[in-house]
């Protein structure tokens, strides 16, 4: 048991980390009280982008809007376009997530949005999990979970099978 434990730790520490950053440009253009946003990456991506937008003064994250945004390809670039109502000038938090779960790249920007002015900013999306953890850790983790789930389902199935045979 100790051997397997040490082997797991050795494998985790010895394998190189994955790529951990993505860079994009966020353009914000308010128009008639609606903020038109465009996030552009200079590479081809296929994931849905999740955008959460909220204002710091809002009470709690339940005030946040989350938008699923589909990608559109323009040559070698990937563009995500989304919009949200903006009525007054102020500080906003925009959190962007590309990819799923622990493999996701997460970006965070705090633009000051004025319904009358356009602006653009640089967005840095980071996968902090990938920075330090070898790529196989997540699949191994899910494989362990699959075994545990299989055990739970198997035990319940066995119990139900025996119950079916009761007289």
């Amino acid at each position: 048991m100790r051997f397997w434990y040490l082997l797991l730790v050795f494998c985790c520490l010895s394998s190189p980390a994955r790529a951990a950053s993505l860079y994009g440009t966020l353009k914000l253009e308010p128009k008639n009280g609606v903020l038109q946003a465009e996030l552009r990456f200079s590479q081809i991506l296929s994931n849905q982008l999740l955008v959460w937008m909220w204002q710091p003064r809002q009470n709690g994250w339940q005030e946040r809007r989350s938008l699923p945004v589909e990608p559109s390809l323009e040559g070698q670039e990937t563009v995500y376009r989304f919009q949200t109502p903006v009525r007054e000038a102020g500080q906003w938090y925009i959190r962007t997530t590309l990819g799923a779960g622990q493999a996701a790249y997460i970006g965070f920007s705090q633009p000051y949005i004025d319904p009358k002015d356009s602006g653009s900013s640089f967005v840095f999306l980071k996968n902090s999990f990938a920075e330090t953890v070898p790529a196989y850790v997540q699949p191994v983790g899910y494989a362990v979970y699959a075994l545990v789930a299989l055990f739970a389902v198997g035990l319940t199935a066995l119990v139900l099978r025996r119950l079916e045979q009761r007289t």
Partner: protein
Amino acid sequence: MDKPDVALAKKISKYNQPMQLTQPLPRVQKNLWQLGVLPIMMLGALSSLIGVYWDIAWHIDIGRDSFFTMPHNFIYAGMLIVLLTTAWGLFADTRATSFHWRVAGRYLHPGMLVATVSAALILFFAPADELWHRFFGLDVTLWGPMHLVGLTGFTFFTLSGVLVSWLEREVAPLELKPLFERLTLFFAAALLGNLMLFLAEYEYNIAQFPIDFHPLLLSALSVFPLVLIAKIHPRAWAATKVALLFTAIRLVMHLWLSTTEGMNLAGVSKPVFPILILTAVLIDLLVKKMPTWLLGSSAAVVTLLVGFVVNQIFPQMTWTLPVLLRGSLAGIILAALVALLATRVARILEPKAI
């Protein structure tokens, strides 16, 4: 005046003496409610639901500052009590009914076996999750591998509650049957709550996986406890009662989150909870009138329609058209399969002996 009949008086006084037992009466064997196991399991199911939602709110707004946070202590202490109680219940229950298993000279209650293993799984998850975070850092998703182990443990624990209370009903005397029927309704509502717990990231509006999974899993997972209870329960409107009870539990939880927030013991985030009452009404109305797969799919359609309306009222949770199309189609197909599974389990649980 007649003389008193001394012989008769002696005879009467003899009958007035307390009865002398020549051999002891057989010991009445207690069921799992009388042993106190089922009440603890009820509290465990309720506290796990409240604790996990409390924990998620804590993680969102306060962070994962240490292993011994208040919600963690609440969940793990609760499940430790449940594990000890169910393990004790396995040994204290000495009955030999048609469903007890004879193992090494003892009779094991199969439902209690699932309950004990599930509670052990949840307690295994606590240190495993802590180790995972220490080795690999703070992953930001509820669907991380170790978190899923915990969620699976909670789900099978509440499923075992349904099994235990329903099997107890099978062997209970007539006057106790309604009690176990009500307990089965409670555990079915807790099972529904735990299945919805898998969607907590969407309810809290902090989704880390594609939004497509929200309509898909919401419409499919909710079908299992509702169809199961509608199939096995002898009383009318069983699924509707389960959906109402589920809603009541979620309201209590909301109250708990507001109270802890007021005392500065939790974050401000609150989950939006699914409205499943119309789905349950449809299942109750059509459970005997349509094929199971069609019942499951129809229930999914109602869940999706209600979800879509809720989505319009609370625009934080955005089901866009592509999301709705992809998620709904898969959800309707999966719901048909889940309804077939629930029906299979219901057939197994049909009473075999009185």
